[in-house]
């Protein structure tokens, strides 16, 4: 597998205090990689070192084959960075901002106009692009903030908590936009302290706390680390359950246990919702009605709790 980003034991100290203490990971081309961690975990510091903004205390990172230490200009050409804050000029219009940043990203003059309209389309703000940024809502500013990072068609897009402080609708919009970009082949490095976001977006996730990666892998792999199982709860008529259905459910591969709870049957499993068709088939076979199905999977929140003994958000 060809890695677009190789992070090699990055360390960053601030006046003796370690903000990042030895972070290593790889992001493959086309992948969406998530850095999940609470405030102060070191996500922004890590992104800062990858974006050649901060000099690492030790360690290095290679992006598209270029070292952030030895060839920062090559790295900068390969990446689009969407910073945590809205780094735009509020008294300029969206289009003027994009024009300026296109020049900073060295987009050719002839191409810039077309690229600007393209990224405005991507974030869906083309019809408001002539207005000043300071007249925009928080969500719209965030979207232009993202658009800037796309101007030069980067190989890697790094987004640092791009949904902080936006309304739910804009948040969904932003997540969908990033997901779509990733589907179209853009490699994404996404940080957040919202587990739903990285779960929704990312193929692989690294969980950070106190400057270190404490767990890393696909959603599935991480879930297995928790040791907790999924709970599939099927509401039905208690009188119709009998004993045959629970026994045959228990016999399904991947099912650990089956419990009766008043008007519900609870199936404990490690394979999650993939088991649903077989469970439904068993109910149909034994002619037991299904009134409702609920799947509860242990999430990254519970994993984080499991690993650190504290919540993602304090």
């Amino acid at each position, binding site marked *: 597998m060809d890695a677009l980003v190789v992070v090699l034991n990055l360390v960053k100290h601030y006046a003796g205090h370690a903000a990042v203490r030895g972070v290593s990971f790889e992001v493959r081309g086309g992948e969406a990689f998530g850095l999940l961690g609470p405030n102060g975990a070191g996500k922004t510091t890590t992104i800062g070192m990858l974006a050649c903004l901060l000099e690492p205390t030790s360690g290095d990172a290679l992006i598209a084959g270029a070292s952030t230490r030895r060839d920062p200009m090559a790295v900068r050409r390969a990446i689009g960075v969407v*910073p945590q804050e809205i780094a735009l000029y509020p008294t300029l219009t969206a289009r003027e901002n994009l024009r*300026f940043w296109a020049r900073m*990203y060295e987009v050719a003059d002839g191409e810039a106009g077309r690229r600007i309209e393209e990224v405005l389309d991507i974030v869906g703000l083309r019809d408001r692009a002539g207005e000043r940024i300071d007249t925009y809502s928080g969500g719209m500013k965030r979207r232009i903030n993202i658009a800037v990072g796309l101007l030069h068609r980067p190989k890697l897009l790094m987004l640092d908590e791009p949904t902080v402080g936006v309304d739910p609708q804009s948040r969904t919009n932003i997540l969908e936009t990033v997901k779509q970009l990733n589907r179209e082949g853009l490699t994404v490095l996404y940080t957040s302290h919202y587990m739903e976001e990285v779960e929704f977006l990312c193929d692989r996730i690294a969980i950070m706390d106190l400057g270190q990666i404490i767990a890393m892998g696909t959603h599935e792999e991480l879930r297995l680390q928790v040791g907790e199982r999924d709970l599939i709860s099927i509401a039905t008529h208690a009188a119709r359950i009998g004993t045959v259905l629970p026994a045959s459910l228990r016999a399904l591969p991947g099912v650990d246990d089956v419990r009766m709870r008043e008007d519900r049957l609870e199936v404990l499993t490690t394979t999650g919702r993939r088991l649903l068709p077989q469970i439904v088939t068993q109910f149909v076979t034994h002619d037991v009605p299904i009134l409702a199905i609920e799947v509860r999977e242990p999430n990254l929140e519970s994993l984080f709790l499991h690993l650190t003994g504290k919540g993602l958000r304090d």
Partner: protein
Amino acid sequence: MSRKALFIAAKDLSIRVRDRRAAVVLLVMPMVLIFILGLVFNPLWRGTAEIQRIPVVVVDQDQGEIARLLVEQVLGTGAIGRMLRVDHTGQPAAARDMVMRGRRAAGLVIPRGFSQAVMTGRPARLTLFTDPAQSIRAGIIHSIVNRFGAEVVKRQVAITVAAETLIIERIMVPSRVGAAIPGWLKDVEQFTGRQAVAIAEERGSGPRFPAAIDYYAVGMGVMYLLFGVSMASQSILVERREGTLARLRTTPTESADIVGGKLLATFLTGLAQFSLLVLFTRIFYGVQWGSPLLLIMMIGATALAAAGLGTFLAALARTPEVVESLAPAIILPMSFLGGAMFPIYVMPPWLEHVSRLTFNRWAMDGFLAIMAGAETPAAIWQPLLALFAMSLVFLTVGTWRLRFR
């Protein structure tokens, strides 16, 4: 300077052009202040006001009749007397020093035996020190002394002829002739007394001193230029706080281009601000700024030094707010010392001396010299040099500090 620096400067300027508050502070405020100060202090500038007088220091080692004539009758009375402020010192070296430090426009040394030489018809010699930075005013002194020289020669010829006649005809003995000469001179002087006035009137308009409003157009212009550039150079701190500076550094842009672009924008802001003030004061207050070519040179040098000072301020501070509160604390005292309020002409010598340490003083000296009629760059070389030196120092230190943060 690369294209990117130009783009950054252009972006800064287009942001600044939209800043109404800044426009009011940087253009309307000085216009109002120039008007008020010009109005309030105008009487000070009128007629024989002390501040208009040309400071001249005289060393009278002669103490003779002719020397007294020169000092009291020529330099001390009539139209010339009203134009000058004469004081005395004992040592030629001290007088020279005062002139070279720019504290007097000219220094006149009347050597021992001067009167004697004049009265006995021997060649006599006067020494005149002049300040090149005040070339117009020094030129006036020069022509007065020259004129006096010519008058002396006339009298010398007249008296020599008279004395020789009296002695040859044996009407008077030489020793009595010697004693009588001062009396004759007085008579001659009374006879030709109007000549002294004629000298001044021959100079035509004489020195053109700026009116109060002209003076304050320069003073406030320079002071507000400093406010302008401090506001402009603040923008790099605003960009640091808002995160756009960090974003710039994630793009393939050299930090030299970033600093260079910001600096260029600051310089151009100062240039535009001062040029507009020159234009406005010309249109609304009829201020005569003088030679356009020299004015352009001075505005350029002043804006550059101011940009350096602004950059230096920004480099000292961590946040825009710090600059905002630091700027007046530096700019106001420096401006007052430099003559923005209290005219340079009336400063006591020690203050006048101190004022040369300020940016404002050098800038004002240059603009005032142009107003007074300077026509060649040679007349403003000192202010230009001082301003370029300041630019160099402040820009070097300022950009060095900015780049290391």
